[in-house]
């Protein structure tokens, strides 16, 4: 049986919501199966691992709140991805813009530190958004005027931003905590903390901001001329050009918004959770955001449950490691497996596989 060319894939035109949900379910099951194999390789019991994973993520009120806390940056980086990917602008810069936002917020914090929280925090958020947005905009400008692929410029940008942060936190840099050998700033003062939503937990205002952003992005995409133009450009750039849509404007503004959203994620983590700017402020939230967006089907509202799912994964993995010894790095592997499974499952439900028979 020759696998090449004897199988006909007929594209199914209608992807029903059932089909789409089926795809996600298939993906999750496949991911679980592969994860089980990986867990076995780590000499642990898959059942134990999964149970502890779920316990760690949703076991009690505190766990649930922590899961939501972990999902906050994911909602924002997910939204950053959604808005770019809907225009087929393949930005991978969420990670770098995350740090840009954290840096921008930190810089504003240092300047305006004396102000009361009610004034300081909005300023920090604005600075974070704008810094991230500038980062995104640079990639947009490079694409619009120099035809530099957004993928490459954002990936390169991530490395450059990483080194820049390292410099700022280094011995010769301006931000390192005095007297410390570690690459970190001094702790943030309490008047800059994002307000906490529930006592005895870490869930902070950033979560509400993320939810609000989700709705704003939804409105932009579906109810504004700009969103219409962005979607049109993503679907058929040639027709968009012929019908007068300003391509450069679309690219630059989209990257501006995308960068800003990722920037908000960064500053949320800094002023809401970690309270110190360090290179490990993000364990890859930018990249996970891409996966969140894909799982959500590039739907800005769907980003919320998808982010919570992955937040649960990250949160629960700590408990899993304590109880079974499986390295938390499993989450990185699982995330990627979910994405690939989802891609495959989407394809399978979108296509009918038909074996072409020989005419006898």
């Amino acid at each position, binding site marked *: 049986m020759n696998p*090449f*060319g004897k*199988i006909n*894939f*007929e*594209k199914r035109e209608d992807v029903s919501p059932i089909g789409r949900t089926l795809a996600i379910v298939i993906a999750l099951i496949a991911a679980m199966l592969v994860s089980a194999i*990986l867990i076995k*390789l*780590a000499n642990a019991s898959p059942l134990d691992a999964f149970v502890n994973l779920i316990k760690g993520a949703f076991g009690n009120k505190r766990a649930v709140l922590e899961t939501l806390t972990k999902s906050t940056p994911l909602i924002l980086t997910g939204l950053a991805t959604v808005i770019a990917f809907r225009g087929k602008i*393949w930005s*991978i810069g969420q990670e770098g813009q995350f740090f840009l936002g954290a840096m921008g917020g930190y810089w504003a914090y240092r300047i305006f530190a004396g102000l009361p929280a009610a004034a300081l925090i909005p300023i920090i958020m604005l600075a974070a958004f704008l810094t991230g947005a500038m980062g995104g905009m640079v990639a947009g400008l*490079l694409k619009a005027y*120099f*035809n*530099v*692929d957004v*993928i*490459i*410029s954002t*990936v*390169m*940008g991530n*490395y*450059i931003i990483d*080194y*820049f942060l*390292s*410099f700022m936190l*280094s011995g*010769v*840099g301006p931000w390192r905590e005095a007297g410390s050998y570690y690459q970190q700033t001094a702790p943030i003062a309490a008047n800059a903390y994002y307000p906490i939503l529930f006592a005895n937990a870490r869930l902070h205002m950033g979560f509400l901001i993320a939810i609000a952003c989700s709705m704003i992005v939804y409105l932009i995409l579906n109810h504004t001329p700009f969103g219409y133009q962005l979607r049109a450009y993503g679907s058929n750039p040639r027709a968009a050009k012929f019908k007068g849509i300003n391509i450069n404007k679309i690219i630059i503004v989209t990257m501006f918004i995308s960068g800003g959203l990722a920037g908000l994620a960064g500053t949320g983590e800094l002023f809401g959770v970690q309270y110190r700017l360090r290179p490990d402020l993000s364990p890859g939230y930018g*990249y996970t955001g*891409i*996966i969140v967006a*894909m799982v959500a089907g590039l739907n800005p509202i769907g980003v919320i449950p998808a982010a919570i799912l992955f937040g649960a994964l990250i949160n629960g993995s700590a408990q899993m490691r304590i109880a079974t*010894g499986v*390295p938390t*790095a*499993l*989450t*990185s*592997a*699982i*995330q*990627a*497996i979910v*994405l*690939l499974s989802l*891609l*495959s499952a*989407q*394809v399978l439900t979108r*296509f009918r596989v038909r074996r072409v028979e020989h005419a006898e």
Partner: protein
Amino acid sequence: MLNSLLQAAIIINVLASTVRIATPLLLGALGELVTERSGVMNLGIEGTMLLSSFVAFLVAFETNSIILAICAAMLTGAFMSLIMAFMASTMKVDQTVTGLSLNLLASGISLFWYRVAFKGTDTASIPTIQTMGTFKIPVLGNIPYLGQIFFNQGLLTYLAFIMVPVIAFFLYRTYTGLAIRSLGENPRAVDMKGINVTRLQYLSVIFGGVMSGLAGSFITIGTTVRFLPEISAGRGWLALVIVIAGNWRAGRILLAALLFAFMDAFQLQLQGIGIQIPFQILLAAPYVLAIVVLMANRARSLAPSHLGIPYIREEG
């Protein structure tokens, strides 16, 4: 400072390093050249290199055999690219997303596997391996200056440079090469000739994957004694940039790869001298260069017309 840089020994050192550093870039770029000529854009090179470098390290650690390690790396590259070929050519899914997924997959799996395989080792005894070492070519290796730069390198380096004319010849002087070049421009034309488009794309993509696997193996067993997470450090992305900067031509790809490698070798030398520039700026230089190169390269006249677009036969 300039004086100390201009000493012959240092120049030779930098140039020799350039040749060495160019190896994985060149291997990756040449492989991707063939892949892209067939119409597939494999963004998963970075992940392929990373996972291959880990597998090579692991096999070298367990078996002490360089050959097995290289074979394992090539197999890893083939496997990763097989996924890409399947998604791009058979399933005709968006190639960008697939490539990104492969990168994330490789990141996750390599990190996880590393932690699992070397669980319990404390930081004092990070696992290390014996690297490949260099092989001095007789006669040529004794030429003053040039000998040290070009003919005293690892086997993979020689392979990488030999592949430049080999691949150019393959693409322009063989029937298969002609078919591949046609495929990236107009797959329907190739299909109409009765050539199996899918099979040809699979071969091209997997070839690219094997080359990336070799590149990955060089990163660990070719140069460093230990494995670090994300050790590929963007080389796969640079390979993509090099293909674009080389305008899809093997000779120019060689030049572009040497350019990037030189930048890296140069900044390493500067660090060694103890220059007063923060080392982060030097480390960031290749990535800035990549962007600059792309900015200057707007023409791209030879990009395969159908690159990245899945070929679907039945429009009926």
